[in-house]
C-alpha cells in the first residue's frame, strides 16, 4: 500500500541499520516518546536489530496509560449515571479504575459507546436530545484539535446535552520532567511525529538547548524509526544537540496553525496529574472558562471514594524508562491484558502490553 510499504521495506531498514552501525562508537540511551513508536519497535523487533550499543527506553506517550485513575473513576461514575450516553475512543474501555472498567460498566447496563471521532459524539447528542452525552476527551496534542472542534461544533449548534470529560496531556512538560529527574539516563529523544504534526517543533528548541539533548521528530513505521535513531546517533556522536525532523512527510516546523488555533480557542494550559508519574506543572489542557458549559467535571458531582492504584504496579518507573516491563514482579503473572493491574498493560501502545504480546518468546518457547 502506497505511503506504508516503502516505510516497512526490509532493504531500506537494512540500509539504515548499516548506517547506524557505522556511526556508533559507544553506548547511547535513547527514549522514544510515543507509545505508537514503542509498539512499532517491539512489533518489528527493531531493538533487537539495532547494534547493542543502542538502548531504547520507552517513554510516557501513551494517552491511555497516563490518564490518572481519578479521571477514570470520574468517567465510570458519569457513565453509570442514569440517562447518560458515555462516548469514548475504544482503548479507554478496558483501563482499570479503582474498582471496575468501562467495558464492565457497559455489561452492567451503562450506555457506553465506542466512537472513532469526537464529532460522532456530537452527532449522538443531536440525535438524542432527551439524553446527556459525555465524551471522554483523552489524548496528547494529536487528538486535541478534533476534540476542540467537537466543543466548537456543539457550541455553534447550541447543544445543551453535550459535554466533555477532559484528560488532555502535553508532551514537552513530560520530556522536561524526565530530563530534570536525577535518575535520568536518556541522552536523546525520538519525539512524537503526530504531536509535532499539530504543534510543530518550536516548543522543543529550548529543551534541547537547556538539557543538551538531541530531539529528533520521528514517525511510526519501522523505517521512520530507524531514520530517527540514525539522526539522534549522528548528533550524539558529533556532540550536537539540535531539534531535527525525520518525519518530513508529515511535520513542518510551524505545525498545523489552524489546528493550533482551534485548540487555543477551546483549551488552556493546566497542571495535570499523570498516572504513575504524579502531577507535572503545565502538562495538561483544560476547557477555557468560556466553554465551562461543556465541562463534564462541572456538571457531574465528584465520586466520593478516593482513587487508589494497585500497590504492585510499577507503571511510574516503566513510564520514566527506569524499569523494563518484565522487571516488574507481577508482569505476566497477576498482571496481564485480560486482568491489567496498571494502564500500560491495557492499550496496545502501552509498554507492558507490547512486551506481553510480542516478547514472551523465551519463556513460552520452552517445552512444558
Amino acid at each position: 500500500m502506497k505511503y506504508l510499504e516503502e516505510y516497512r521495506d526490509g532493504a531500506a531498514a537494512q540500509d539504515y541499520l548499516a548506517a547506524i552501525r557505522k556511526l556508533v562508537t559507544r553506548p547511547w540511551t535513547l527514549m522514544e516518546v510515543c507509545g505508537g513508536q514503542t509498539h512499532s519497535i517491539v512489533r518489528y523487533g527493531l531493538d533487537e536489530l539495532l547494534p547493542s550499543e543502542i538502548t531504547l527506553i520507552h517513554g510516557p506517550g501513551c494517552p491511555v496509560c497516563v490518564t490518572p485513575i481519578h479521571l477514570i473513576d470520574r468517567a465510570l461514575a458519569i457513565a453509570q449515571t442514569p440517562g447518560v450516553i458515555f462516548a469514548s475512543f475504544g482503548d479507554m474501555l478496558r483501563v482499570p479504575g479503582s474498582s471496575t472498567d468501562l467495558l464492565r460498566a457497559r455489561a452492567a447496563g451503562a450506555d457506553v459507546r465506542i466512537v472513532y471521532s469526537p464529532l460522532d459524539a456530537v452527532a449522538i447528542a443531536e440525535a438524542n436530545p432527551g439524553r446527556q452525552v459525555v465524551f471522554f476527551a483523552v489524548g496528547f496534542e494529536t487528538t486535541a484539535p478534533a476534540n476542540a472542534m467537537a466543543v466548537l461544533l456543539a457550541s455553534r449548534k447550541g447543544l445543551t446535552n453535550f459535554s466533555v470529560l477532559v484528560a488532555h496531556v502535553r508532551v514537552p512538560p513530560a520530556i522536561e520532567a524526565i530530563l530534570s529527574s536525577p535518575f535520568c539516563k536518556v541522552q536523546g529523544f525520538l519525539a512524537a511525529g503526530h504531536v509535532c504534526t499539530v504543534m510543530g517543533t518550536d516548543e522543543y528548541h529550548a529543551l534541547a538547548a537547556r538539557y543538551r539533548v538531541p530531539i529528533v521528530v520521528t514517525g511510526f513505521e519501522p523505517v521512520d524509526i530507524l531514520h530517527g535513531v540514525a539522526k539522534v546517533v549522528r548528533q550524539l556522536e558529533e556532540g550536537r544537540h539540535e531539534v531535527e525532523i525525520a518525519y518530513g512527510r508529515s511535520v513542518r516546523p510551524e505545525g498545523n496553525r489552524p489546528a493550533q488555533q482551534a485548540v487555543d480557542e477551546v483549551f488552556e494550559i493546566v497542571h495535570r496529574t499523570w498516572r504513575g508519574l504524579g502531577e507535572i506543572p503545565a502538562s495538561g489542557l483544560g476547557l477555557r472558562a468560556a466553554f465551562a458549559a461543556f465541562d463534564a467535571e462541572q456538571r457531574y458531582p465528584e465520586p466520593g471514594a478516593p482513587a487508589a492504584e494497585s500497590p504492585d504496579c510499577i507503571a511510574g518507573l516503566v513510564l520514566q524508562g527506569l524499569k523494563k516491563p518484565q522487571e516488574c514482579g507481577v508482569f505476566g503473572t497477576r498482571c496481564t491484558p485480560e486482568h491489567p493491574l496498571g494502564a500500560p498493560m491495557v492499550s496496545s501502545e502501552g509498554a507492558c502490553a507490547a512486551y506481553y504480546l510480542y516478547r514472551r518468546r523465551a519463556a513460552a518457547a520452552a517445552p512444558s
Partner: protein
Amino acid sequence: MSGVECPVPLGPGEHILLAHGGGGRLTRDLIEKELLPALRNPALEPLADGAVLDVPPGRLAFTTDSFVVQPLFFPGGDIGTLAVNGTVNDLAMCGAEPLYLSLGLILEEGLAVADLRRVVASIAQAARVARVHVVTGDTKVVERGKGDGVFVHTSGVGVVRAKGPLGAKEVRPGDAVLVSGPIGQHGVAVMAVRDGLAFSSPIRSDCAPVADAVMALIDAGVTLRCLRDPTRGGVASALNEIAAQAAVEIELQEPALPVTDEVAGVCEVLGLDPLYVACEGRFLAFVAGEDAERAVEVLRGREDCRGAARIATVKRASAGLVTVRTGIGGVRVVDMLSGEQLPRIC
C-alpha cells in the same frame, strides 16, 4: 374467530408478530408461504418432527453453530449466507463433504417480512451453491427488544472424505501452513457498515463455502494434517489454538500473508491487525512440508482460491507458540486476542 388465527397471507409491508411463533395458523402460514417454497426438498417436504435421511457409507461429521451478526445485511452476504457457509465450512474442516443442515430461526417481533424473505432466499441460494439440503427446522418468535431481528442456528452433517486422521494432534514439525485466500475481508466488511464509521468501503465479505476446495486437496492426494477456518479471532487465534493443542511453535512469514490493499488500509485507519480479523470463506490447511507446493498449486488452480499462499511453517516442539518473522527481519510473538480488538486513540 380469534384474531390470532386470522389466516391473512403475509404481505410485503408486513411484520412478524408474536403469533407467528405461536404454533397456530400464522406459524403454519409462515412455514408454508415463506420457508418451504425457498428450501423445498423431499426430506423437508413432509414437515415432520424430524428428517429421515439416506447417508453414504463412511463416518459422519456433525457440527452446530449460532449466528447473531449485526447488521443482518452486509456487503457480500447476510446472516443467511453466514449461517449456511459457517456450518458447511465447519464440516469441511473435518474433511467431510457436507450433506444436510437443520435451520433454527429465532425472529424478533416486528421484523419486516421482507427482511426475513431476503434472509431465507440467501439461505436457499447458499445451500444450492454448497450442494446441501435444509432437511429440518424450527421457528420461534421473541418479544420486540428481546432479539436482534433474526438469530439463526444451523447444525449440519456430512460424510468424511479425508483419507487419514485430521486434527491438531496430527500437526508436526516440518509441516507447512497454507491459507486459501486473502484474509480479514469478512470482519472488515461488517465493521465498515456498522454505525459510526464515517467512510464507505468497497470491501465485500469473503463469506463462501470452502468444502469443494478441501475436497480438491483430498482428491489430489495431499497429506492433510489439520484444517481450521479462521473465523472469530482470525488467523492468529486459530493458529494459537492449534499450536497449543499440538505443542509446537508455528512461525508465520509476514510478507507472505495475503492481505488486500483495501483491508490493509481499513485496518491501518482503525488500528486493527488483519491477523485477528475474521474470515468466513477461507481455511487454514496444515499439510506435510513436501506436499506444500503442490497443495498451493491445487488451490490456486481454483477460481475461489486464486490468492492461496503458504504463510507459515511448523518449526519445533514447544509449549505452544506462534511467532511472525516481519519484513524487516525481526521476530515477535503472535498471541491470542485478549477481549475484542479495540480501535486506538491515535
